[in-house]
């Protein structure tokens, strides 16, 4: 079943008084339970696309359908894990996790039960009463994932959530995220500029073309899980994506030199 459809999404940006096309007609179908990775050069508009799905930005034309219904605003059915976590420093870890539940008016006892479950899933139970400044960057991203999952969203949106992590922490979270995906059967859209992340995580990888950006190619990766960073069998996917992206980066620098 199709969970989310993006239909011909167009977005312009104002750059020094000139209108620049950021997204030039993006069309994408995401099936229920898909793990879709969007990979592309920096500045290609992949985060903008994610923000449009989240409802944080509006497209100039085109529409997003969730379960067949058009959406225009932000909603807890599409929770986002931000690059820097965006946890609230004034709240304890557990209160961060249940923030959205509180906004939805869910009673305290029920909130605690749900948040405890996700804290446990992310191995954060010990840190329930900590404040975010007491956590490492990796821990913060775990909290951010728990916070997004606690809303039991239709789709989990992830905007380069592991970009700021050291490689050991990242490898660990890459495996954990696959396990969580298998356990919760969530539909996930994950944006990254890191090719190996996209290969490890995605069952579909969408390669974004440079500005004006379009989807250049979709690669299906049907391979056992959990996939590990060092798995040599993933190399061919890595190289396929790398080739596609290389030509993009070359075209971009040629443009810049003109």
């Amino acid at each position: 079943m199709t969970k989310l459809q993006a239909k011909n999404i167009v977005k312009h940006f104002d750059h020094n008084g000139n209108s620049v096309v950021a997204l030039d007609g993006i069309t994408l179908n995401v099936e229920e339970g898909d793990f879709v990775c969007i990979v592309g050069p920096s500045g290609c508009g992949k985060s903008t696309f994610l923000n449009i799905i989240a409802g944080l930005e509006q497209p100039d034309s085109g529409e997003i359908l969730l379960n067949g219904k058009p959406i225009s605003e932000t909603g807890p059915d599409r929770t986002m894990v931000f690059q820097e976590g965006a946890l609230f420093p004034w709240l304890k870890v557990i209160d961060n996790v249940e923030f959205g539940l509180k906004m939805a008016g869910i009673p305290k006892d029920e909130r605690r039960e749900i948040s405890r479950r996700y804290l446990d899933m992310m191995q954060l139970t010990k840190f329930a009463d900590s404040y975010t400044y007491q956590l490492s960057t990796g821990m913060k991203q775990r909290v951010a994932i728990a916070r997004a999952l606690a809303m039991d969203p239709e789709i989990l949106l992830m905007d380069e959530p592991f970009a700021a992590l050291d490689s050991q922490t990242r490898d660990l979270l890459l495996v954990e995220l696959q396990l969580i995906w298998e356990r919760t059967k969530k539909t996930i859209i994950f944006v990254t500029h890191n090719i190996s992340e996209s290969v490890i995580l995605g069952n579909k990888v969408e390669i974004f073309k440079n500005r004006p950006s379009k989807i250049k190619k979709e690669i299906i990766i049907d391979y056992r899980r959990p996939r590990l960073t060092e798995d040599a069998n993933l190399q061919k996917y890595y190289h396929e994506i790398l080739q596609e992206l290389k030509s993009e980066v070359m075209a971009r620098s040629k443009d810049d030199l003109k």
Partner: protein
Amino acid sequence: MNAKLLYKQILFYVGIIAVWQVIFLTHVVPSQALPSPLQVGQLLLKEAADGSLPYAIGVSMWRLVVGLIIAIVGGLTLGILMAKIETANQTIGSLILGLQSIPSVAWVPLALLWFGPTDAGTIFVVVAGALFAISINTHSGIKNIPPTYIAAGKNMGASGLQLITNVMIPAALPYLITGFKQGWAYAWRGVIAAEIIFSIAGLGFLLNLGKHNNDISQVTGILIIIMIIGILVDGFVFKKLEAKILARWGLLK
């Protein structure tokens, strides 16, 4: 506060009192102009015992707190309005910048004409002194909220008033506390000034009474009390609050 610093400060204040006592004993300054530390201490003890000093402190603090609460509610509202609506910032914002430059004591004549020598008059001076500093700091606090906090709040279903109370105000707290601190300082000056000029109760009134009765011990003693309250509120209430907020927001190195 570490022990060494505490000893240093205690020694310093004991030193001041000693020098003061020496000056008094040598009659360099006439005793109508300078009481002895002992006279001041005795007077304050007497006034503490008969309840007149605690009453005066209570009255002044009550006026201050009521005024500050009004100024905080009003300042938050104005500041958020200015941050959200650019026209409000360009119009009301410019007026507030102007009004903020008026010293709190300058509001006293207006307070007297509008409210007479009443509690409301003193509270008006407190509000006028604190409101604008709080508005300005609220405005910059809201403007400086990292955009991802707002995005995250909206993403998890907060909107309208919910977003303001659950995300924007706490996110702006490091700025807001600066506003409250400034606001308190202006308000404290304002309440004492208003009491000196037109009130029949409070620390400012006791100060004025001392002047009327030519009682130098009273004037000196009340000045010391005003200073101590300032130190306590600044050093304990605000500094502690500020340190806690900065640490929690990850802003403290």
